[in-house]
């Protein structure tokens, strides 16, 4: 709402002159945000941001009322003295409301013998200052009165209305209207329209029709000043993709009481500026006038809610300055709400009114007297924090990616059409092709992070995200959290003289991150086993299983996907469900006594068929070595001479310990014999 300071000052009587420069700070303290201030000649124009609950602020009088209240001044509304002529308006025009749900009040005024022409400069200037182009004296008056009162008006050329009147009704199927802007509008059934006997002539409260507009030759004018239902106006405007000065005001819900005043004011101005005669009486359809609302207020509660000792007299004075009537009782006051403040419905609204004019800045800052408890963090929030911290410590950098993805992102990243991860939930009303679905996995977003960085020459990227993923399932829509990891390039800096394989991201560097996380969380019973996945390198992929349930996957991104994203190298990706990790993270780890007896270490080079996995060797060792085996880990894998072709050597280091006594070398030798026999038997192993 653009507000001209000089115009505003015409509408108030203030005890002390006001400096407009100060009002850049003062308007916001009343709830009127200042978007911009502009000097126009010796006038100031404030672009005020008004809240949706205050339709009265979309008129100069509404803003003036606020300024008067804040300055302890008085409102000075324009005086209307109409000289009416015969015949009565009702004899030459008619107004009808066919659907009272669409329109609560419709006031019509008829002005005849007008001479349409340009507006005087003062009016054209004012309109322009407030952002409205001058058209002609009649149309300008409707706009001027709208700016003044907040009540949108429309002027019809009465002679072009078939049957000499208008009806407010819902559009019928197939109806079309060419609006003032020359656009042909196809109306949906139910749209709020104004029609004459034959056809639609205006979109109620939004825009008039071209055919009935005021033209130079117009002689008889039917003025419309109505209260259309906000929802009806909004629906119609949205359906047609329109937004006008009128629709904005109607959508907020104005004041039916002011419709009469605005119609008379406009008729008077037309008479002044365009000549003509105002016909006697108004055409007023107002089947159910609203009685003024009465709301009770307890001053004690006002003070309790605000936390400030506003004296009774001051509270009552503030309300009266805002044109509320106050009947004070001992504990409870009865406050009558003026018709322009239909937003005030209950006690809290009155408390806000008092607080607003009293000044939010005069309310002290206190801390709650409520016993301050100790803060807490929900377990899942706490667990997520720990998981983030562990991944950060593992050297991964946190990223945030959008939860909205393109429809084809999942395909691009290699997820086949029938895969459950393709069951993405679509947005019903996406804004762009970039964001049409909710992501089912963090994978596409993380690969996109790799791509962006690679394209900008950042080759070393080691990132993770803890975020939500969404999926449609038989049960409905699921929302859960996942941990995603993506790595490419070197994970270490300062790598001169180091062998590349020790420095570059690899399947096992990724696996190490995952293992480290699971171990730090004391997750029990997990296993990582080979599992081909369509988006991963078929021989460098694995699933993570916990207690017989698959809760994640990891591996090298499929070379074709890498190529599609132009990664120019290998990339490693993983995704884990957060829930099982959260559960584990919540458990309190229990102390296990330390063993102080010496351990015995033995190495064994196991030569097996190339197809045998290191994990199988370790599993056999674990199964047969018994309870004294403390640890067993492969430390060297080798193929090549002197190992025969088709076979490889897996060297494992075993550590034996009995916490109660010192182990004898011979005992360990006997265990080792059993281990060898079992390996030989089950894996056809030989030994080096």
């Amino acid at each position: 709402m653009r507000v001209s300071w000089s115009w505003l000052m015409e509408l108030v009587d203030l005890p002390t002159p006001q400096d407009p420069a100060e009002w850049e700070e003062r308007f916001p303290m009343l709830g009127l945000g200042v978007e911009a201030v502009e000097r126009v000649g010796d006038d100031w124009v404030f672009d005020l941001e008004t809240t949706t609950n205050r339709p009265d602020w979309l008129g100069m009088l509404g803003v003036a009322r606020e300024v008067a209240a804040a300055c302890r001044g008085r409102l000075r509304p324009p005086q209307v003295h109409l000289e009416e002529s015969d015949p009565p308006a009702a004899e030459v025009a008619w107004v009808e409301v066919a659907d009272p749900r669409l329109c609560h009040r419709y006031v019509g005024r008829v002005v005849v013998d007008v001479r349409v022409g340009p507006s005087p400069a003062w009016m054209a200037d004012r309109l322009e200052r407030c952002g409205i182009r001058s058209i002609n004296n009649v149309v300008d008056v409707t706009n001027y009165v709208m700016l003044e009162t907040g009540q949108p008006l429309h002027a019809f050329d009465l002679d072009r209305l078939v049957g000499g009147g208008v009806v407010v009704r819902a559009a019928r199927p197939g109806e079309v209207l060419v609006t003032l802007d020359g656009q042909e509008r196809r109306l949906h059934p139910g749209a709020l329209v104004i029609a004459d006997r034959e056809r639609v002539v205006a979109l109620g409260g939004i825009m008039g029709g071209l055919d009935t507009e005021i033209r130079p030759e117009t002689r008889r004018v039917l003025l419309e000043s109505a209260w259309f239902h906000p929802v009806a106006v909004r629906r119609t405007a949205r359906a047609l993709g329109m937004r006008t000065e009128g629709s904005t005001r109607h959508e907020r819900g104005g004041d039916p009481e002011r419709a009469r005043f605005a119609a008379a004011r406009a008729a008077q101005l037309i008479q002044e500026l365009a000549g003509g005669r105002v016909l006697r009486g108004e055409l007023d359809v107002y089947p159910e006038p609203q009685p003024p609302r009465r709301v009770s207020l307890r001053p004690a509660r006002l003070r309790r809610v605000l936390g400030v000792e506003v004296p009774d007299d001051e509270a009552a004075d503030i309300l009266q300055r805002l044109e509320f009537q106050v009947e004070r009782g001992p504990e409870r006051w009865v406050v009558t709400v003026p018709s322009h403040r239909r937003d005030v419905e209950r006690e809290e609204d009155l408390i806000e009114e008092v607080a607003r004019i009293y000044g939010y800045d005069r309310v002290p800052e206190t801390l709650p007297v409520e016993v301050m408890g100790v803060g807490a963090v929900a377990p899942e929030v706490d667990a997520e924090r720990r998981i983030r911290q562990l991944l950060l410590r593992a050297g991964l950098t946190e990223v945030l990616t959008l939860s909205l993805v393109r429809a084809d992102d999942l395909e691009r990243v290699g997820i086949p059409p029938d895969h459950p991860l393709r069951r993405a939930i679509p947005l019903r009303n996406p804004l762009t092709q970039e964001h049409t679905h909710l992501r089912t996995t963090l994978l596409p977003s993380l690969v996109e992070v790799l791509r962006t960085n690679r394209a900008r020459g950042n080759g070393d990227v080691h990132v993770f995200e803890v975020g939500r993923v969404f999926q449609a399932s038989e049960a409905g829509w699921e929302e859960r959290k996942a941990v995603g990891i993506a790595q490419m390039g070197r994970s270490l800096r300062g790598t001169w003289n180091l062998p590349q394989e020790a420095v570059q991201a690899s399947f096992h560097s990724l696996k190490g991150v995952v293992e480290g996380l699971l171990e730090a969380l004391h997750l029990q019973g997990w296993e990582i086993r080979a599992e081909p996945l369509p988006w991963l390198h078929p021989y460098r992929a694995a699933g993570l299983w916990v207690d017989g349930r698959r809760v994640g996957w990891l591996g090298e991104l499929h070379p074709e996907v890498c190529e599609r994203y132009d990664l120019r190298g290998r990339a490693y990706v993983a995704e884990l469900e957060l829930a099982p990790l959260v559960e584990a993270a919540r458990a309190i780890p229990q102390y296990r006594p330390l063993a102080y007896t010496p351990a015995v270490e033995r190495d064994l080079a196991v030569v097996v068929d190339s197809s045998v996995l290191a994990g199988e060797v370790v599993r056999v060792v674990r199964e047969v070595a018994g309870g004294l085996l403390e640890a067993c880990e492969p430390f060297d894998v080798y193929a090549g001479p002197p190992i025969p072709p088709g076979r490889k050597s897996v060297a494992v280091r075993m550590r034996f310990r009995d916490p109660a006594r010192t182990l004898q070398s011979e005992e360990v030798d006997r265990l080792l014999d059993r281990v060898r026999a079992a390996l030989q038997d089950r894996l056809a192993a030989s030994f080096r």
Partner: protein
Amino acid sequence: MQERVNALRQRAAQELESASTTEEVEAVRRKYLGRKGELTQLLRSLPQLPPQERVAAGAALNELKEWLEQRLRERAEQLRARERDRRLRAEAVDVTLPGRRPPVGREHVLGRMMEEIRDIFRSMGFEVVEGPELETEEFNFRRLNIPDDHPARDAQDSFYLDDEHLLRTQCTAVDVRVMPRRTPPIRVVTVGRCYRRDVVDSTHMPVFHQVDGFMVGEGVRFSDLKGVLAEFARQLWGPETRVRFQPSYFPFTEPSAEIAVSFRGRWLEIGGCGMFHPRVLEMAGIDPERYTAFAFGCGVDRPAMVRYGIDDIRLFWENDVRFLAQF
């Protein structure tokens, strides 16, 4: 005898001096003090000396022996030090080569700010919770006193999945989910993602973050809201920070206010707040006559831009590692 002692001392001294390894020092020791060493033999021959010479000779030889043992030790130590130094010198490193740097993980700047915010409210006795991003109209709107025909319900502004489901447009939805499950006093805060149908530009993204919290109790006042948010602002923005509350409008609070903080000489709008509307409390099964409540919702992304001097909101989501490494 004294002459022989002197000669021997002089010779031993010279030999020690020319010894260049600990082995050669050992050879000198053997030559004089070994079982058949020259000094050993002289000492062994003492009893054959006439008694009147024996005392003086014995003293001279023992003094020589002590002297020689000490010199041997010193020389050996000296050479050991020299050898050690030679060995270590061969191990010299080039201290100007870059260090081997294990990766240091960095929090995303928004992730970090959200952690800070959680910590601040936790320290003020709030319980940190979370709620779903996929919301229903019931919690996202109706329970917040936003009726079906309210402009905020406009599908233009929200991402809908079907008639009843949408992506939450604010975190206040979490408040009204949590409230019915607890009995006052309640102090809860949540930090998370919200969605709005905004075209991407340097200050808008369809996904953004919010911190939202509320407090319900028998004596919760508007002044408490000011106090708690002022304290929060000072914790996050620095002890000198001032907080400005200006009247505003939200369907779910009454009175309502906009919050701005002073930062580097200008006002930065960070969010909205107010006293929960009695209807909201009623719908959550809380008696608004007995209890009052304040609530607030603040942005994270745009304040973070100002705090860290970031001029384009898209940088948060691009995840360029050069950007991420700066925080």
